[in-house]
């Protein structure tokens, strides 16, 4: 599924990196724990999170994530958007909860990352 379809399904707004909205999402991970994101995701993963600090962008950068959706109406600050942009990480923001957002994407066929933390 393309990121632009994710945007429609979640009634989300693109808050940064709109030029990368055509990217393909293979799996989804929902978490506020960046340590778990680093341990369990793979490179075609979209992250759904309620955290908006700079470490979320760093985590996405190191993990080669497809993009980030901020849930529960959270909005990142300008310095966070700027860093994401320089790392080519698209950012979306939705008013829906993490549970609701995950449910909508799951219903359309997007699956979770395998939880064993296996490396590719």
């Amino acid at each position: 599924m393309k990121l632009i379809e994710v945007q429609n399904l979640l009634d989300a707004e693109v808050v940064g990196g709109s030029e990368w909205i055509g990217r393909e999402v293979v799996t989804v991970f929902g978490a506020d724990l960046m340590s778990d994101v680093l341990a369990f995701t793979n490179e075609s993963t979209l992250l759904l999170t309620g955290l908006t600090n700079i470490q979320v962008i760093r985590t996405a950068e190191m993990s080669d994530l497809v993009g980030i959706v901020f849930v529960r109406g959270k909005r990142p600050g300008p310095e966070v958007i700027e860093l994401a942009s320089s790392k080519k990480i698209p950012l979306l923001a939705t008013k829906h909860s993490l549970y609701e957002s995950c449910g909508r994407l799951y219903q359309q066929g997007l699956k979770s990352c395998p939880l064993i933390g296996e490396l590719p």
Partner: protein
Amino acid sequence: MSGKQEIILEFTLKASCFDSAGEASSKVKRVLQQIGVRADIIRRIAISAYEAEMNVIIHSLGGIMRAVIYFDHAELLFEDQGPGIGDVKLAMQEGFSTASDSVRQMGFGAGMGLPNMARCADVFDIQSEVGIGTKIRMIIYY
């Protein structure tokens, strides 16, 4: 990658300096991309480096990170000052953490860092002395 001369990158990591946390690992990642290392290998190196960098910034009084990039592998070395880890075996267990609430609010301190480094790296070595500091050495082959 052509040429067999290694590239050495060295960084000073300041305690509790969260705004710049991750910059050192980001620079290492960029160099690996420039020399054409495979993306999945870079990902393992970047994650190991970032976890260790965060650990130094979260837990220690400051330290250094040194990345030596060879033609067929990368070596990551971290050396910090105090407080050290009393029980390394316990610290290696998933879920064990001594991080503060403020660190947890940033999304870290879940007790996943050390086990994740050990999983990403081909060689993982940790030495720690209470009151002195911690040394971590990791090697990842391309």
